[in-house]
């Protein structure tokens, strides 16, 4: 009886040693690029100048070398087009905006709502994916 108890305790100790040696490794996450500047709660109006010009208000703006990551964006373009989205990636080299989540684009007589939009600044056009809705008023 005693020997059985010793074996059982020994087994438990052995298990504890084995389990403590196991390292729960995670797959290495892709290193996130650090933004050069971060503007938080920046609901002041910023003017983006250069090849693509627009005014920008946002909750958070992360500025990278060739791109912006904008959260809670309100973007106004020349000609009166307005874009709202939860997340916007602005690629300065390609002059494109990738807007995601609760995207609204509106102009004089129409309003587009969707979840994913690629906006091509130079061509003044956009593509809406994964379902969208366009309302035309007279």
């Amino acid at each position: 009886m005693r020997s059985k108890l010793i074996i059982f305790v020994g087994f438990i100790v052995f298990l504890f040693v084995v389990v403590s040696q196991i390292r729960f490794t995670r797959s290495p996450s892709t290193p996130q690029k650090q933004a050069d500047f971060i503007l938080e709660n920046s609901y002041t109006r910023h003017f983006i100048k250069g090849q693509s010009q627009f005014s920008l208000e946002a909750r958070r703006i992360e500025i990278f070398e060739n791109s912006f990551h904008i959260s809670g964006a309100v973007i106004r373009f020349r000609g009166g087009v307005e874009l709202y989205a939860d997340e916007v990636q602005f690629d300065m080299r390609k002059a494109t905006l990738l807007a995601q989540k609760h995207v609204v684009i509106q102009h004089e007589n129409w309003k587009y709502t969707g979840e994913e939009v690629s906006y091509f600044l130079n061509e003044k056009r956009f593509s809406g994916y994964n379902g969208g809705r366009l309302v035309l008023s007279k």
Partner: protein
Amino acid sequence: MLRLIFASMLFISMLYAATLSSDQIDIEADRFEVNISSNHFVAQDNIVIRQGEIIIRAKQASYTRAKDIIHLLGSVEMVYGPLRIVCEQLVFDRRKQELQGSKSLKAFYRSYEIEGETLIYRINQKIVDFVGMTTIHENKNVIQGKDITLDLLKNKLYSNEKTHVTVEKGSHGR
């Protein structure tokens, strides 16, 4: 006098509200391509268009602001109350408030099944003109005529003066 003014104001506001809702057009689709500078859009796949009580489904739609016309292609279906139109091509003129259907055209209205070459649906007048040779099936009856008109308000089908074919609901073969 006050009652009359109040009633007329209420009538005008109701009329205004009705005009607003019918002026607005709502387009749902899987994909959109919108050109802002030319005010042109193309919508693709699972398109549902709503204007007032009118519902239109199609595979592709394109719109140009300058003409204010929507072109619909591919398995087009329009439903408005008891009227259902299926065709391969439909043109929606928003200024005239007219729908023009063609190619593999069929219209279903109550017990009538109407086949024709082209139709023009005048939304405000609630009149559907079938242009060219038109065949009407109603149960076992078949009527052929040219340029037949369906009046949705009067619930009546009638032809032009040349053919003199008149089918009135309730009086035909029942």
